[in-house]
């Protein structure tokens, strides 16, 4: 029922209030003595070299794509798991076929070296 979610909405409002208050208070009560050196990005005491926003390893994108693939699979597992008792052997075989097709992709990624970090 939608009314079950009303307490979560109330909690959300309280939390947003708390977080906003904290962020505002921290800006108000502390001292404020900015110097150019203080405002420079921290690079272990060296002068910063270039911008931080450079290109980074393709591996991170790959992990993100893999995550989307496999996370959707988990979402398929949840309703199946809840209704598992009613579905019986038929449900198991159906999920087995689904998982096998997925495992083909998983083995392919593995053999292609998609999980290797070097």
């Amino acid at each position, binding site marked *: 029922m939608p009314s079950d979610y009303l307490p979560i909405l109330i909690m959300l409002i309280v939390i947003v209030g708390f977080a906003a208050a904290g962020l505002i208070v921290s800006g108000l009560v502390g*001292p404020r003595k900015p110097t150019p050196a203080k*405002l420079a990005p921290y*690079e272990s005491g060296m002068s910063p070299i270039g911008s931080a926003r450079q290109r980074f390893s393709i591996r991170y994108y790959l992990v993100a794509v893999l995550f989307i693939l496999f996370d959707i699979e988990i979402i398929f597992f949840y309703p199946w798991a809840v209704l*598992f008792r009613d579905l019986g052997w038929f449900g*198991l075989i159906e999920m087995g076929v689904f998982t096998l097709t997925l495992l083909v992709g998983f083995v392919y990624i593995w053999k292609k070296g998609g999980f290797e970090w070097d």
Partner: protein
Amino acid sequence: MFLDPLLLNIIITLIKTIVMIAALLGAFAYLTLVERWVVARIQSRIGPNRVGPRGLLQPIADAIKMIFKEDFAPAQADKIVYTIAPGIAIGTALLAWAVIPLGPPLMIGDLRIDLQIADINIAVLYLLAIGSLGIYGIVLGGWGSNNKYSLLGALRSTAQLVSYEIPLGLALVGVLMISGTLSLRQMVEQQAGVWNVVWQPLGFIIYFICSVAETNRLPFDLPEAETELVAGYHTEYSSLKFAFFYMSEYVNILTVSAIASCVFLGGYQGPLGIAPGPHWLILKIALIIFVFMWMRGTLPRFRYDQLMNLGWKVLFPLSLANIFVTAVVLLVIGK
């Protein structure tokens, strides 16, 4: 009743929410102290013992210091993103506690008070969703600071969190098949006799390993490996903004321990059918967190490739195998 039931409901929820948040902040403050004690003992040190009796006022001193620190933003930072990131981190961490059942319902006269803010029927899914949202705090914090360490820490963190979320989600499926519900309260009530960990030992172990990785704790603390990345995604943060990140980390540890207790260890149910109560849940959470601290004091950090290997090549196939073995066993014994 003089009050409209809806209004009464809202007032009760408001009180419960405020008490819950206060309790979590208190728990966070004292967890930092306990952690320092435990790690100190493991390393044959004494730990904090100067502020107040046995160092008991240390968290309060830390909090006051934190509030009155200078709150600056790096000149090249993306100011808006930089500012809201800690808010997102602490907000999502606290919001997860809306669905954790703390104890059996209380009766005051004929008024029933659930020791849970919202008893929704998809609590497990809700927790996974909120847990994923927590990543935004880290990513935006790392991106917004415009610092190389922060960005690298945030990237590592994201890759790690999303990789371990998959076995974490799958580890819970075994329990869902046994209990047939996504509601945490029903799940806990079903465990009045035997806890789920008895039927799902492998699921529990996989869940525990993944939850350590999800909270960026040793041996999975690569996102903030201090020898390489200074402090990871919160390198450029100070004052209460830093405190919010710190807080969200500890609240997340409390959350994953609470989920482990509710799903696998019977939540507020006592062992061997002893009367249920919130004290059991607190005891179980405390025990799990002690193991977290113990691991931090004992284990060295993983290398990044080992981390990814463990997540994708070991835990993922293992959790899938766990589901299918559970399924076959359930059907054969016809439970």
